[in-house]
């Protein structure tokens, strides 16, 4: 394909695409830029370093990080089993992996809130053991594990499928244990996919709102995440403060996605 191909519709599709994106995406984002221009640096720092904001940021970043890290372990196990082993209902299990992407976050929040309550299906077993999850930061981690679960599995699965088992065989013949083979032969191949899945799950977790408000008690300074605080500020008509917090979230997820791109390019260059 080259630009010399005399296909019609370039001007029309360019015009329509750019107009649509401007109206739907760029114009609202411009409104955020416009509002943040109103914000002086001191105001920004003051808003973001307010104890309630700091606590919300800390909770958002720590729960999203922990959830994404848990998803690395869970995702690797599930991807490995789905690619390498045969078992009954495998296709159904594989299909269910995508459910967290398809299920509305409000439903996820509703169910997770109910499952871990004292009389919930899971809560009735673990609460007597002294594990209280409902309305604590642990509940936030749980729903973030749920919403981010497919990212690592779906990033790792195709890579694992393409890895030549001859490599593992050679490693085994040369005397490596299965664990050594995993760390020294498979892991370097899987790492880029794992990092991508981790970063996507993390980015998703930073912005998650729908499921979190159900399972958290949303107490300021304790169990309130940054998106919840942004909504609270909007409802108080404190738009400047909401915008300052939104900027922090926006910039962190952009930085994260930028980092994945750089990382993917770097690892592709090192493969070649």
């Amino acid at each position: 394909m080259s630009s010399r191909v005399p296909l019609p519709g370039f001007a029309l599709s360019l015009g329509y695409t750019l107009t649509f994106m401007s109206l739907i995406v760029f114009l609202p984002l411009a409104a955020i830029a416009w509002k943040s221009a109103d914000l002086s640096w001191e105001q920004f720092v003051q808003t973001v370093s307010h104890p309630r904001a700091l606590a919300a940021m800390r909770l958002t970043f720590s729960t999203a990080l922990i959830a994404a890290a848990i998803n690395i372990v869970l995702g690797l196990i599930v991807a490995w089993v789905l690619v390498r082993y045969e078992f009954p209902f495998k296709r159904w299990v594989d299909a269910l992996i995508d459910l967290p992407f398809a299920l509305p976050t409000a439903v996820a929040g509703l169910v997770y809130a109910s499952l871990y309550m004292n009389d919930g299906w899971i809560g009735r077993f673990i609460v007597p053991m002294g594990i209280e999850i409902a309305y604590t930061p642990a509940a936030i981690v749980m729903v973030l594990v749920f919403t981010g679960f497919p990212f690592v599995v779906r990033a790792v699965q195709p890579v694992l499928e393409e890895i030549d088992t001859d490599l593992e065989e050679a490693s085994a013949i040369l005397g490596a244990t299965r664990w050594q083979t995993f760390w020294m032969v498979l892991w370097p191949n899987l790492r880029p996919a794992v990092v991508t899945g981790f970063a996507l799950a993390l980015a998703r977790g930073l912005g998650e709102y729908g499921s979190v408000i159900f399972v958290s008690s949303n107490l300021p300074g304790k169990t309130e995440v940054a998106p919840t605080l942004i909504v609270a500020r909007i409802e108080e008509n404190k738009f400047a403060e909401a915008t300052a917090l939104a900027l922090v979230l926006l910039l962190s997820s952009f930085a994260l996605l930028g980092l994945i791109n750089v990382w993917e390019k770097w690892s592709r260059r090192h493969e070649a």
Partner: protein
Amino acid sequence: MKPDTSTAVQPRRQRAAQDPLWLRVLLTSMALAIVGILIFLPILHVFVHAFSEGPFSYFEHLFGDSANRDAILTTLSVAPRAVILNLVFGVSAAWLIARFRFPGRTLLLTMVDLPFAISPVVVGLALVLLYGNQGLLGPRLSSAGITVLFNTPALVLATTFVTLPFIVRELIPLMESVGPDEELAALSLGASGWQMFWLVTLPGLRLGLLYGIILCSARAVGEFGAVYVVSGRIAGRGQTIPLRVEQLFQQYQSPADFALASILTGIALASLFARRLLESASGPRKIPSATTSGDAA
């Protein structure tokens, strides 16, 4: 679903590079436990609780309440509009990105993915800053008699923003894999641009369109954060099904919130099922990646 490359090397792998039985059993049970506790149990829970008072009161909970009926109608009016907007956009942007090379193309490809990177709550804030009373456009629009915020248009705009990438990301890799040969043939045989588009391009995209529409609809119906901010949550005006679920949860109306949630869960499951059907109809396919396609090839 997976390309079966294992059969040829199976005998050798069994000797040298296969996991011992205990490890296979252990990992498989762990994987089943993970998917069971994380995903299967919650789905089961929704339906068991929704029907806990019998099928008659299930429908009573769903449709007996006028706020529920309004929420269902609102979702039915908002989601299709967002899907249609993104459908037309998706075809246009895919045609542009897959068929032409121009400066800024890679940037545009990145911009298409932008909504995935933005918290729904921030999308809601952006719309408030734009269309609110103190917003950039709000005062001008309201003096012209147009109310966007806390009204259906804001719900449509928020939903469209959040679901924008789904259809276009399905179409770009598909269009690139098909290539422009048939379209060029049609043109050289004297078809007009629109004839080529309706008779050659669109039929070739059939499965991708269907697939994209399913993904987009599932997400559009379930969108919460962005819609939560712009709806104002005034009962009966701009309350979608997910927002109503949250309200019922706050009011401790337990079987009723699960009844409404069961509709959303049913839609999510149906979308996964339809997707599997389409995949087996179109044969094994790689997971499309719009960000790398084209540049990598």
